[in-house]
């Protein structure tokens, strides 16, 4: 299971508290985690990436293991620590609030 920390607005939208966990079959990738999140919480479709192009929304960032994964290709494997559940995958609203 992949541990995911969603930003507050998306936790509210998905009606969850704290961390969530999603099952990603095979080698976990950035795109795989996002797909699993959208499958588990359909209300998140369109909020992190475009419905059709699957392009990341401009003000959404993805972090894990103190690395910025926002610009990684969707099929790049996630760090081992995320895949093992030792570290969470973070979905972050970009710092743009003043």
């Amino acid at each position, binding site marked *: 299971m992949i541990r995911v920390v969603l*930003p*507050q607005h998306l936790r509210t939208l998905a009606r969850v508290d704290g961390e969530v966990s999603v099952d990603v079959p095979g080698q976990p990738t950035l795109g795989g985690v996002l797909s699993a999140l959208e499958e588990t919480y359909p*209300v998140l479709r*369109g*909020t992190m990436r475009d419905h059709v192009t699957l392009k990341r*929304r401009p*003000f959404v960032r993805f972090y894990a293991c103190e690395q910025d994964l926002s610009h990684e290709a969707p099929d790049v494997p996630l760090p081992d620590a995320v895949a093992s559940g030792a570290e969470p995958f973070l979905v972050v*609203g970009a710092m*743009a609030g003043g």
Partner: protein
Amino acid sequence: MSGVRLLVGTRKGAFVMRSDGKRERWEIAGPHFGGWEIYHLKGSPADQNRLYCSQSTGWFGQVLQRSNDAGKTWETVGNQFAYDGVPGQHLWYDGTPHPWEFKRVWHLEPSLTEPDTVYAGVEDAAMFKTTDAGQTWHELPGLRTHESASKWAPGAGGLCLHTILIDPANPKRMFIAISAAGAFRSEDGGTSWRPINRGLKSQQELPDPNAEVGHCVHRLAMHRSKPGVLFMQKHWDVMRSDDAGDSWHEISGNLPTDFGFVIDVHAHEPNTIYVVPIKSDSEHYPPDGKLRVYRSRTGGQDWEALTNGLPQRDCYVNVLRDAMSVDSLDKCGIYFGTTGGQVYASADAGDSWTAVARDLPPVLSVEAQTLA
């Protein structure tokens, strides 16, 4: 027992306000969807408990909410607004081509008769429709693919379709307005459209002041008993049409300034209209620091200032285009919200005003529902 429900969209959430027919005391519920921008909420004329709400942020995009119980509970519905085919290009602020990109839903207009049918006006400008209570949305592409669309350009708020009016006598006749393209009319339920901007003049904004499209129309209003008579608050100029938009003439008359955003019509008097003059396009606040609603009982030209209960000094708020509404009680109630977070109500057609709320986030929209 009769009453009024106000649906108030703000920069940081939605509020639902309720009063009985006296409209003296209000219960305020909210914020719903705290932290999200609520451009618009509106109830179905066919089911007063069915509400639709446009929720968005720059971070996480567009979300649509529906309530079946007058706003007590909400459920998320479909948020996929995909343009039909290749979206094409419009003009950018500097006149260069720019691709059509969906940003948000500005306005929701429920069908007059079908609770599950709603029209959505979006940025970049296009009209969408749902017939399954918001689960799925499809574009009515005849508007965005109009032959003039490549000449449309955004106003300061974006290339937004912000007004949708449905003719109660003929629901296939619809009027919409886009900043900054102008007004358009459909006779076939939104399949095809024609510009209706003859008589509008934009001397400062357009190279051809009388152009067929490109005018920054801020708002349209109509009385349900006279759907061929339209009123318009343009960027500058308050306008009127007596032929369903085929031609327009100016009715700014003695207004202190004819810039503004809102315009609305009295529920029982088709010739009584309301505007809130704003100083200028670069100074979005009332002239002289005095918040004044202006009322014309003659369908324009002759205007009177309504000030009783409104701040008459040091007031520098704006009233945005979707932030005025009327109820249909007797006497007609009229409501508006400000960018300073105030919601004002008048239970006597504008003669006197009280603040329903004073410290909300900036108000984006106000809709009044008259409750049976």
